[in-house]
């Protein structure tokens, strides 16, 4: 391709096995992450067709979605979960895929452990049977969520059939105010573009506010690209990225690391490259964000109010809003800071990393969780947990009355015992506030780790910019 290219254009063309005139393409997959929920049927398909895994060494498996976060030493009591986990272990053994099981310290949420191990690398194509695979785009990788049939396709062929998506850029410039972070950036973006705003697109996040984020913050931003409908989100690698990988177990080492960095330096959008659409945001104007409804686009400033459906002209939108407010049991005009919560959840692939633990602990230190709140901290991986414990963060949480759990997806999707009861309201650092997502009839408000921690203590949402 002649002319200036985007980061996405470059990674795409470096992975093309074939591209037909009609745009249908076969792309090579460098890294494949698998977990217990979306892989059993894929392995079953391979078995039935007598196929093998083409590149077991480019595949890594972990258990995360339905694993209990309380003591696991007695085994897993739910027979269906236990069978699903045993099935993964057996499939990995039969097909020669490395597997981090529930007793492995490296076990954790699939999108936390990939980068942590250096399995995720800049300039790679990464897939996983999970929509939040977009997380890995933070490193300048093309990372996409796929369905189970595609998992089977990648296992068998190490390729994926697809066609190129459109380029979209979101530029966030300016300095973030204190108390406002990566989660507020991405929630604001989704509020701006809507949940289908990125459909058929790959988003590149750029601008000074993005550049100044840590790798953890960048992962939080890219993670929720799917909530904006995009197939992938990415950020060009820079010094922060290279440094992150130095010494990681599966990252290149020594001279090989240096030659990798040389390549990674070419992974940026050329001046003059074209984007089909572009959005700009001023970071200095962003407030802490809370969601009020049952779609991640239902965002409002912490100082805002629950919106009024009677003011919405479009009928379908008005009905959607009414439905969401009925589900959430919120009256129009209610101040968000007056909304009381019953539960707080700090964790998930959006906000379960060490920086998130630190941000929450900084708010919690020396305080007590409100009597009305049950609060849970679930580290994203065993290594995050160990690091947090080494820093004494677990003590800060438990002294304040938080529960400190084993790593996993936990109450992000509530497949294990960690779930909301009907009617309970939760301040959650996860990524989806869909009906029933965190438990049947449960009510979820998406917020940053600092906001969730503060709400747990106050018993209602607070503006952490002027709260202590």
């Amino acid at each position, binding site marked *: 391709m002649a002319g200036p290219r985007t980061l996405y254009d470059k990674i795409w063309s*470096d992975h093309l*096995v*074939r591209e*037909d005139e*009609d745009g249908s393409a*076969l792309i*090579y997959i*460098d890294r494949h992450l698998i977990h217990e*929920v*979306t892989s*059993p*049927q894929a392995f*079953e*398909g391979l078995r039935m067709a007598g*196929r093998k895994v*083409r590149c077991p060494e480019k595949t890594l498996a972990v258990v995360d*979605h339905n694993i209990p976060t309380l003591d696991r030493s007695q085994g897993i009591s*739910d027979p*269906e979960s236990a*069978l*699903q986990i045993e*099935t993964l272990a057996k499939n990995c053994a039969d097909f020669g895929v490395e597997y981090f099981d529930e007793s492995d310290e490296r076990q954790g949420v699939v999108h936390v452990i990939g980068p942590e191990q250096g399995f995720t690398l800049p*300039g*790679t194509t990464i897939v996983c*049977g*999970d*929509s939040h695979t977009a997380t890995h785009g933070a490193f300048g990788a093309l990372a996409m*969520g*796929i*369905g*189970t*049939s*595609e998992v089977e*396709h990648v296992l*068998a*062929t*190490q390729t994926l*059939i697809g066609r190129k*998506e459109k380029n979209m850029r979101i530029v966030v410039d300016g300095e973030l105010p204190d108390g406002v972070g990566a989660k507020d950036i991405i929630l604001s973006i989704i509020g701006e573009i809507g*949940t*289908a705003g990125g*459909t*058929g697109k790959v988003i590149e996040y750029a601008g000074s506010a993005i550049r100044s984020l840590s790798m953890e913050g960048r992962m939080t931003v890219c993670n929720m690209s799917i909530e904006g*409908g995009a*197939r992938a989100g990415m950020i060009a690698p820079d010094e922060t990225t290279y440094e992150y990988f130095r010494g990681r177990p599966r990252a290149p080492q020594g001279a*090989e690391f240096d*030659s990798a960095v040389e*390549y990674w330096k070419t992974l940026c959008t050329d001046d003059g490259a074209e984007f089909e659409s572009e959005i700009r945001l001023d970071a200095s104007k962003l407030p802490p964000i809370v969601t009020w409804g049952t*779609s991640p686009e239902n965002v409002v400033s912490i100082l805002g109010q629950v919106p009024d459906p009677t003011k919405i002209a479009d009928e*379908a*939108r008005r009905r*959607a809003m009414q*439905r969401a407010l009925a589900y959430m049991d919120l009256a129009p005009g209610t101040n968000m800071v007056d909304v009381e919560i019953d539960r707080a959840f700090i964790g998930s692939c959006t906000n379960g990393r060490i920086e998130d633990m630190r941000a929450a602990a900084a708010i919690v230190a020396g305080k007590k969780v409100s009597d009305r709140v049950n609060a849970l901290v679930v580290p994203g991986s065993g290594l995050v947990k160990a690091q947090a414990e080494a820093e004494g963060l677990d003590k800060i949480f438990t002294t304040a009355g938080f529960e400190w759990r084993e790593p996993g997806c936990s109450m992000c*999707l509530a*497949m294990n015992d960690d779930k909301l009861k*009907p009617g309970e309201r939760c301040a959650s650092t996860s990524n*989806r506030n*869909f*009906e*029933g997502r965190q438990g049947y009839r449960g009510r979820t408000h998406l917020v940053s780790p600092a906001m969730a921690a503060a709400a747990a203590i106050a018993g209602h949402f607070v503006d952490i910019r002027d709260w202590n």
Partner: protein
Amino acid sequence: MEKFKTLSGVAAPLEIMNIDTDMIIPKQYLKTIARTGLGKGLFSELRYDDDGNDVPDFVLNQPAYKNAKILVAGDNFGCGSSREHAPWALKDFGIRCIISTSFADIFYNNCFKNSVLPIQLPQEDVDKLMDDANRGANAIVSIDLEAQEIRGPDGGVIHFDIDPFRKHCLLNGLDDIGLTLEEADSIDSFEKTASAERPWL
């Protein structure tokens, strides 16, 4: 994969925007290791009350729509989780075609792997089919994939677009893993070049 050529049946109206895959098939059904049997969980949180009884108002519980083969739905159908359990559940229930103004990408892809046809149409066509669907059991809608046409109960015809490769695979029930494996030589040679250029991978 099963072939998809034509389909004729009742269309059920589901006028909700942003129907996500958590709504289509809630997490408690994801513990299965099989692809089949998920129909009972389809839309379960809308379909059943707290005691597990049918909610009479929910469209797929109404006598007219119990055997619906087509779903006409609001914007951005299938957003959220990548779970292929969503099309598995729809298919297991008997729904082979979904019509909306827009679909989330992963869900859209997943449908084609399971011989379920997602049809994207402009708002006015979806409105027309939504009206047809609201007329109940006598309003039979027919789909002809080869001709790329939807025939409404009054005989009106709506044309739809579809990617030619996907159409070909659906019509012939092709398994795309088999097709890709035929390209093993190209994959081998890609791997050789790539590992020379990026040996650390």
